[in-house]
């Protein structure tokens, strides 16, 4: 099943993981130490984040380090920015309509 980034960030634990690994690459054990949950639960979250391409894995010896895919995170901002633009444009049009109404009623 293909997942996407909005689903990934729907969960508060996953959002917290994103914030943690944005600062530095971490192993699943390091990450789990920050949460009051099982190592298995963290692994599941990491799997979802990986499937969404939000995190990347790097092997160093026997350890796997997880870090954030910054570019992918930007996608969310891009969507929001377009959405914001629509409302901006809509409201600028309303400004014009309102100013026309004002003139006509004077």
């Amino acid at each position, binding site marked *: 099943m293909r997942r996407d980034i909005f689903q990934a960030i729907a969960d508060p634990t996953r959002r917290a993981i994103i914030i943690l690994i944005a600062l530095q690459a971490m192993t699943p054990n390091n990450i789990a130490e920050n949460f009051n949950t099982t190592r298995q639960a963290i692994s599941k979250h990491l799997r979802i984040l990986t499937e969404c391409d939000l995190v990347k894995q790097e092997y160093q010896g026997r350890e796997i380090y997880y870090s954030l895919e910054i570019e992918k995170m930007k996608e969310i901002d891009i*969507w929001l920015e*377009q959405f914001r*633009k629509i409302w901006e*444009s809509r409201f600028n049009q309303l*400004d014009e309509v309102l*100013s026309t109404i004002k003139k006509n009623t004077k």
Partner: protein
Amino acid sequence: MKNSLLFDLTVDKSTNTIFIKREFEAARSSVWDAFTKQEILDQWWAPKPWTSRTKFMDFHVGGRRFYAMVGPEGQEHWSIQKYTTINPITNFTYLSAFTDNDENINDEMPSSNWDLNFSEQDGTTLVSILIKQKSLASLEQIIKMGFKEGFTMILNDLEKLLKHLK
């Protein structure tokens, strides 16, 4: 003058809610009319190059507005809004859903609850809009659809800009 007017758009993914705030340099009754009268609404509701075409609008509790967003190539996206509460010039709420061109609600598309509030201070009217989606997936879909419309809008701006550069 326009620059000092507030515009704020935030998304809370944990509650699937979009919050929009905007100030207008007009009396509250005029802004209210612009949101609740079909002939004014159609003049601004669609971001250019899209246009808004309202087929009917019955602004009463239980009444509905049935309208299309019409794209630059004539493509039509129909929606219906069903008014759930109305407190003249202060607040109104509605349920919004996507339909086919025959008023049949498309269940595969997200529906949302809208809550619009109007307040006035020193001749400036503040409109606060709260859009609540049923799920994060619907919120995502709405934002992505916005992306599509926003994209044609940007291409249009770009076209204008290029004409100026020639």
